């Protein structure tokens, strides 16, 4: 947009700005946070896969999901701590619990879920303290779904137009993507003959991810345009291509061929990672240009006065 103080024309209305400068700040988060959205999703849905696997007495799959989830649970807090301005103060996250802050709720969920998954995996490996392991598995199973989805609420609960305007879909999109990624990651490592549920979870998640992303982009108004532009657009198209190709491969040949199942899973994983980066970059792009915020708020004001 022009750097003068004059009117800027967009969607048929005149939008004004202060020298084209942003109104809200761009996030100060580094790409580690987008990687965490991905690994946290894997960790959360693997906890669920593992728990349901135990209930269904598919122990081969359950153990794989436990180990894959625990690996993601080890990486996730490290990514978040590295993003802090003062990493040595990471424990301050657990000074308080605030339901008004998805970051606070998420810190507790991650601490519980990650701690219990890693403990359960370590005890499984060591073959000791079975009652403690069961308790840890239960905590991991209960907190897993929250870990897989709260990051959608985290970004939606902001003043960043591309995120806040998508608040009705982002937790669902992230949940679907987490299901796909967790299922796919488990499919990669599961012993032969046990991977069926993980593969079908990846397929279900991938289809839901594609459908929900499409619904989000169709419903979003002017601010939704950033999901199609620049880096966010490139990651978004990559995500759709990989996820669709992976889902097609899983559906058509995944049952018969282990190789096809693993290739499909790898594609679904790549799609999930690209989706998180697309959403992450869209936030920055929508904050950088004040038109998105002004247009959104002017439309809201118009609706309020015409009512």
């Amino acid at each position, binding site marked *: 947009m022009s750097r003068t103080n004059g009117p800027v024309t967009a969607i048929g209305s005149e939008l004004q700005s*202060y020298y084209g400068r942003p109104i809200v700040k761009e996030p*100060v988060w580094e790409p580690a946070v987008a990687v965490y959205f991905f690994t946290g999703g894997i960790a959360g849905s693997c906890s669920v896969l593992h728990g349901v696997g135990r209930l269904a007495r598919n122990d081969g799959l359950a153990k794989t999901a436990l180990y894959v989830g625990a690996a993601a649970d080890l990486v996730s807090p490290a990514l978040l701590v590295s993003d802090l301005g003062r990493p040595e103060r*990471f424990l301050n996250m657990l000074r308080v619990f605030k339901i008004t*802050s998805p970051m606070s709720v998420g810190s507790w969920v991650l601490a519980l879920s990650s701690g219990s998954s890693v403990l359960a995996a370590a005890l499984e490996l060591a073959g000791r303290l079975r009652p403690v392991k069961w308790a840890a598995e239960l905590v991991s199973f209960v907190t897993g779904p929250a870990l897989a989805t709260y990051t959608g609420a985290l970004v939606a609960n902001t003043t960043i137009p591309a995120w806040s305007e998508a608040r009705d879909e982002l937790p669902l999109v992230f949940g679907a993507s987490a299901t796909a990624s967790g299922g796919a990651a488990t499919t990669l490592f599961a012993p032969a003959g*046990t991977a069926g549920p993980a593969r079908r*979870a990846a397929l279900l998640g991938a289809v839901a991810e594609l459908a929900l992303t499409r619904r989000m982009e169709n419903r979003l108004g002017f601010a939704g345009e950033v999901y199609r532009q620049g880096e966010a657009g490139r990651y978004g198209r990559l995500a759709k291509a990989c996820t669709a190709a992976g889902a097609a491969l899983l559906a058509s040949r995944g049952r018969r061929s282990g190789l096809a199942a693993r290739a499909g899973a790898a594609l679904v994983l790549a799609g999930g990672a690209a989706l998180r980066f697309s959403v992450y970059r869209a936030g920055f792009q929508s904050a950088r240009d004040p038109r998105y915020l002004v247009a959104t708020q002017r439309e809201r004001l118009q609706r309020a006065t015409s009512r």
Partner: protein
Amino acid sequence: MSAPAAWPDTYGDEAKPRMGFFTDTSICIGCKACEVACKEWNLIPDDGRVWTGESYDNTSTLGANSWRHVAFVEQRKPLKVDGDAASVDAEPLRWLMESDVCKHCTHAGCLDACPTGALFRTEFGTVVVQQDVCNGCGYCVVACPFGVLDKRHLSRAPDDPAPTLPLLGKDEDGRVWKCTLCYDRLKGGHEPACAKSCPTDSIQFGEVEELRARADRRLEKLRAERWNGARLYGRDPDDGVGGFGAFFLLLDEPEVYGLPPDPVVPTTHLPKLWRTTALAAAGVVAAIATAFVGGRS
């Protein structure tokens, strides 16, 4: 309608009247004494000198190292609306100046979002960051409807002492900073540095209730004098942030000054957002349970 949560009730006998600013931009002369006084009193570091070419504004925006920012707007608009002698000129010109600051919202997005409790509501009803608690997570930065808060980046000189704990190679202060409404000065019974230094009383400090009444009288006067575009911004306790503790009299739409036209605290939508998240979590469990139908292979 609304008072800030946790004020004054949590302070009991120590609660003070809610204090704030009324910034009347119609008498701002753009001297930037507020910016300088704020920097000096609060020991805010230099943030570089950039010549923007945007009128007289080289500060550009509020941030970690700018807690007052004077905006300069040059317009081909008459100072007064139709019929007045001042607007007869063929090419009218007006120069708007506005000293921006943290709004100390009644419902503060930064405060709701802060996961460490570093941000808190003071006994004066203002919002302050405790620098010994903040871990620089940056969530308040994206929760503010006005882009007020930011993380402070500071290069460490080669001979500066190394931090006591590893900062993972980060050359920065790493914490979030913003206007404290001179909490230390308020504690001592003084007015904030910016208001103290303002030569025209464009920045007025006082009890919010009293400032609102004063602003209403001022707006009435400017309207009677047919000033072009005069309006109050953030005075209404029923707006999306429950009214500002630091509000403004503007002479044009808020976005002309780089302010959001309809600020809403994100927390407004949070109850529904949590319900959506619960639905998503249930969906994850349902999808995975469904995936177990059909056996192991």
